[in-house]
């Protein structure tokens, strides 16, 4: 199996960072993810959309007063994909 066969959705810096962050919490706010991954809003939006389209995360948009609040949550499909990705990476790292 070649290295390039890894899940292309996860094998990208920002998307992998987002998934790693979401995997250990129940849900996280857009602002929190942006701060923790040190990304820009524009880039993060694009990557979140890709993950959401793939069904790896669930995005909920609400209004808190007048401020929009975007919450992200990893789905079971996302957890499975992340598990598979980690197992494959571990295969490569085996001496």
């Amino acid at each position, binding site marked *: 199996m070649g290295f390039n066969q890894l899940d292309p959705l996860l094998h*990208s*810096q*920002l998307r992998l*960072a987002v998934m790693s962050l979401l*995997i250990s919490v129940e849900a*996280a706010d857009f602002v929190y993810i942006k701060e923790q991954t040190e990304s820009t809003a524009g880039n993060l939006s694009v990557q979140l959309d890709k993950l959401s389209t793939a069904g790896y995360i669930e995005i909920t948009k609400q209004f808190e007063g007048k401020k929009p609040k975007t919450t992200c949550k990893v789905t079971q499909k996302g957890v499975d994909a992340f598990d598979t990705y*980690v197992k494959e990476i571990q295969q490569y*790292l085996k001496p």
Partner: protein
Amino acid sequence: MRKLFEMEEKELTPQESMALIQSMIGRSRKRYSDNSFFFLLWGWIVLVASVGHYYLSTFTDFEYPFIGWSMTIVGGVISGVVGARRGKTSQVKNYTDKMYGWLWFSLGMAMFTIVFNGQLINWNTVPFILLLAGVGTAVSGAMMGFRPLQFGGFVFWALAFVAFRQPENYQMLLLAFGIAVGYLVPGYIMKANFRNNGV
């Protein structure tokens, strides 16, 4: 500050992938939230109510020595409102915070049930309250990795042993002592920790 992910998307090596996963998981894992507010609120309510109960029933002829316990209703409302507001405004929902909320909600229900039916057990409620408070503090302490609370749990447990063998009056003093050691002292330490180093 350098934007970590604004650099050109380059191919990740397996080592880089693993390091990235570990660092992100590490960021979201925090030791505990500052819950000192709740420990201090309930610590003071119970301390005042129990000492008042002891004083009024021992040294006065006042008909309702348990009057101070009505403050628990106010405490319940304040806890509910503050808890809900914190949950709404927090940017991240941790499983720990959720478990923590359910633990204390369940214990609160159990305590309410015991006190509400107190007459049926001759108002021998304090030993049971001490045991439940002990479960809450010990488990919260373990979840947060915060030893003063775990120690408080053991103090509650030991006091419950004694309280089963004492009349209601003295039970109130044991409860006051337990709440000071199990809620107030850890609560103030927690508050100071957060103020000093934000952990």
